[in-house]
């Protein structure tokens, strides 16, 4: 199994690790039994733009790298744009993932969608 340099870079020096204070969209997917859990934090402003994003991940190198890349890619995007975000976008940006690690990118895309959904739910309750 071979990781690209971009994957290794994002694993060793991941961007956007941690929790954002005042995050208004939080999504968590995965399960410990499968060996990966991804939690994404979004700070979305009144114009519907993702001002900041961060993550906390329990998982392998590909899971950490996917989280880092995915959060980096959606910052500055509108929630409409981020809603169209696909796992293949992460895979491409990472320069590819081993076949058995593709699910890590799926997890990242799902966590973002879950965070956006959480944002909508919270807004609807207001």
């Amino acid at each position: 199994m071979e990781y690209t340099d971009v994957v290794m870079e994002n694993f060793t020096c991941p961007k956007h690790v941690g929790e954002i204070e005042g995050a208004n969209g939080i999504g968590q997917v995965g399960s410990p039994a499968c060996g990966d859990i991804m939690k994404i934090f979004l700070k979305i402003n009144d114009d519907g733009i993702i001002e900041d994003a961060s993550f906390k991940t329990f998982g392998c190198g590909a899971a950490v790298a996917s989280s880092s890349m995915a959060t980096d890619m959606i910052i500055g995007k509108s929630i409409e744009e981020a809603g169209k975000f696909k796992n293949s976008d992460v895979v491409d940006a990472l320069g590819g993932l081993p076949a058995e690690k593709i699910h890590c990118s799926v997890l990242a895309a799902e966590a973002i969608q879950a965070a956006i959904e959480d944002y909508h739910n919270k807004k609807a309750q207001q």
Partner: protein
Amino acid sequence: MKRIYLDHAATTPVDPTVVEAMLPFFTEYFGNPSSVYTEGRGVKKSIEAARLQIAKAINADPREIYFTGSGSEADNWAIKGIAMKNQAKGKHIITSNIEHHAVLHTCEYLEKQGFEVTYLPVDEYGLISLDDLRNAIRKDTILVTIMFANNEIGTIEPIKEIGEIVKEKGIIFHTDAVQALGNIPVDVKDLNVDLLSISAHKIYGPKGIGALFIRKGVPIDNLIHGGAQERKKRAGTENTAEIVAFGKAAEMATEQLEENAAHMKKLRDLLIKGVMDKIPQVRLNGHPEKRLPGNVNFCFDYIEGESILLSLDIIGVAGSSGSACTSGSLDPSHVLLAIGLPAGVAHGSLRLTIGKHTTEEDINYVVENLIQIIERLRKMSPINADCPIDDAVFDKADHHH
């Protein structure tokens, strides 16, 4: 960067003395040992000398040693060969649920062929219970196969006691001793075993050569059919160079056993103490005393094994993990699940296996760096003592598998 290799349970570097012993057999002594002319006869003698070296290493008669292509082949042969030959007497086999896949998957294959297999459970340390074994034995039990020492957690099973129970019942007993040889004494007479699998590449020999000890008179079918090699029991032109190498490696392993074991044990205990003292939320897997001298296996809560391995690799350390992410399968190690660990914890396992060349500086380096690696990964993890796995809310718990 200097590399620190701590995966000796996976494989070992071939000892230079062993390489030296085997090299002439590729070019100078290339003859087929079955040939009647000089080139063949000389090679035949070297094979028999190697067979004697192996026999001495496990206190067997050289005529009870049969070379195979690997430890896996030896396991396959022992189990399938006994099952096929003795099926008229019964079709029941007993094994444990922490065996190497070479044993487990062979047993599963036989189940599909109409055999019945009992998989004995193990306790939290990975030990089988002798009472469980006694209770599992039936009139139609033809084979008991229990590993000598576990490859993942290093637990040493009570092989001698198992052998006594099995012998009393007149059942054939096989043990996979691939991890045991070179680490702890292996004496087939003392242990009451009928068949025993070993492999060269775990004892500083080359890959691609193993052996099966078959006690004289044990009824067994062949696995590899063809020519009359290995006293008509295992066909295929002898892998002369590697057989010679295996013999040399076995001889050295026997000579150095006490010295190597004491060295590894000292470093093992240093590593265990260092990690347990300096890193919180860690557990040692396997038995605290009844374990291989070179085996260390930890679970670090809240983090995943492959991340630890990658982080160690970056700083020059080679280790292994029972995490699913490192195995290509979806489930974590069957051994860690068998000792009762939840899957989420089993994913955070790290196995470091020490060898004869490992130094105290190596161990200190690993401990110091491991502290930072675990801390960094835990900071990144969404689960911790305040937010444990059980309380975490999952939007899509079974999303991707």
